[in-house]
């Protein structure tokens, strides 16, 4: 299988993971919907969780409630 080293897709080269790429595509598709389905789909897009990273057995004080929408 010939592997050209430069044949990386644009999004991978820009630093995105496959997951973020597919999420952006999904939100684009959701934006194309018409009204009753659009609000139902918007409910499926809500993201909320609170991350805290730990270092040396202690949580770092950054508790950002990640509330992203693509």
């Amino acid at each position, binding site marked *: *299988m010939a*592997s*050209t080293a430069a*044949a*990386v*897709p644009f999004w*991978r080269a820009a630093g995105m*993971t*496959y*997951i*973020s790429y*597919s*999420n952006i595509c*999904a*939100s684009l598709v959701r934006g194309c919907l018409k009204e009753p389905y659009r609000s139902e789909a918007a*409910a*499926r*897009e*809500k*993201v*909320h*969780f*609170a*991350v*805290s*990273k*730990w270092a*040396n*057995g*202690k*949580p770092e004080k950054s508790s950002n*409630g*990640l509330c*992203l929408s*693509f």
Partner: protein
Amino acid sequence: MAMAAFRREGRRLLLSPVSYNSSVAARSAILSDSELGPMGARSVSTQAVRNRMKSVKNIQKITKAMKMVAASKLRAVQVRTENSRGFWQPFTALLGDNPSVDVKKNVIVTITSDKGLCGGINSTSVRVSKALYKLTSGPEKETKYVILGEKGKVQLVRDSKNSIEMNITELQKNPLNYTQVSVLADDILKNVEYDALRIIHNKFQSVVSFLPTVSTILSPETVEKESEAGGKLGSLDSYEIEGGDTKAEVLQNLAEFQFSCVLFNAALENACSEMGARMSAMDSSSRNAGEMLDRLTLTYNRTRQASITTELIEIISGASALTG
């Protein structure tokens, strides 16, 4: 005449336990404080037993309500869980399942609940995580925890706090959806280095049975290494790859997507198991409250009858002392 007055007095005093007025309680001091029964034996006062009965009855109502709430939530999540099982099945068909893979960097993702009163599922998950930690540790090996949920953090912080990498809470504030879990998966992938990810959750078999399960996801490099060993991964080369992607590219995409899908299913299954466990825990606690209430009622009746009997004895002996 005095006898009749005494009898009337006795009847009035007898009627007082029925009304709960505190003024009456002050008058009939016999009943409101702990009293000495026949032969000076102490018995629990009826007031204390009454209070206890009231609080146990309230607790029973609350646990019954919690059980119903959990049952309705369970119905909603169960459908989605069963539908989400189709997410990871193609991955297992393609890549196989390698729980016994031996790698240097392991990351254990433990999924627990944020809220309590759900029986023992969080403890079983934590126990399995600790066992897996022991299994995967060794010289030159590194194992870290990523904990989803408050309850797991509380238990793991006690003895493994130096191995905790991340902790995620408030996951169930909005109903679980794929977007949320995939953003979370992305976050985890960006922040940890791993050769193998092991997701520990409780798989929902039925309302009363939850199995702790481990799902293993290998990084693309590990997949390459394992494919040399043959088996399902070895036959990956027989697939033809369309488009301009290389095999390494495809494996990278697949690994990320697999993690996201498996995590979604695992989070849903754990949510289902949490609701089921809470249902059975609240059910058994309502039953226990009912039994406690029965026992307390018996005690209450016994105490009440004993106090009535002592009153009668006093009245009658007083009356006979006057006449005789």
